């Protein structure tokens, strides 16, 4: 079975632009969470979606938004990009809301 997949793998944007990152969970998993990992730090929780509804939000500005589709895939959108948004964006899926999380390979975003 395929693991969690994310696209694109790398992305370069300039300040002020917006970006959409995509995640496909493991087949059968209904929960998707998004994390931001800045170099040298641990992942920081951004959002959790379960059954297409937002179930939790971390301490991130409203420039960050997400959604989950009927097939349980998910998108993370970031508007008005700042230099500080440069990071590895990780998606994690799980069967239910509290089950083991499986991380995807991440999307490395560079904002110039």
């Amino acid at each position, binding site marked *: 079975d395929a693991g969690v997949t994310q696209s694109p793998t790398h992305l370069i944007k300039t300040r002020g632009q917006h970006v959409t990152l995509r995640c496909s969970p493991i087949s059968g998993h209904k*929960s998707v*969470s998004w*994390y931001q990992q800045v170099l040298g*730090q*641990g*992942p*920081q*929780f951004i959002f*959790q979606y*379960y059954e297409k509804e937002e*179930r*939790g939000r*971390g*301490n991130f500005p409203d420039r960050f938004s997400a959604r989950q589709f009927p097939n349980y895939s998910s998108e993370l959108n970031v508007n008005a990009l700042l230099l500080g948004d440069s990071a*590895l964006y*990780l998606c994690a899926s*799980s069967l*239910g*809301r*509290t*089950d*083991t*999380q*499986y*991380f*995807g*390979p*991440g999307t490395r975003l560079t904002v110039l």
Partner: protein
Amino acid sequence: GQQVMQIPQYQHVQEGEDFTTYCNSSTTLSNIQWYKQRPGGHPVFLIQLVKSGEVKKQKRLTFQFGEAKKNSSLHITATQTTDVGTYFCAGPRNTGNQFYFGTGTSLTVIP
């Protein structure tokens, strides 16, 4: 807000030596998870501890959850070069599968 800290931040050991990383939370945790992230990779789930005082072993790795459920440790016996990476603990937010990750301990194993 809730904080999850780990010490040490970095650890260099000779191959064959033991290694321990400690995780401390500012609040009581319902459970704690441990992940390993290789350089350039993504976090990989290792184990989850739920019960107070719980100890679990995976080959050379021993995980412990404190009695007060506010701290945890990971001990590796006789490190190997394949153990290289950053080890994170993660504790849940109030509900659901939303985790606060610790600051991580980066392990370097010198052959």
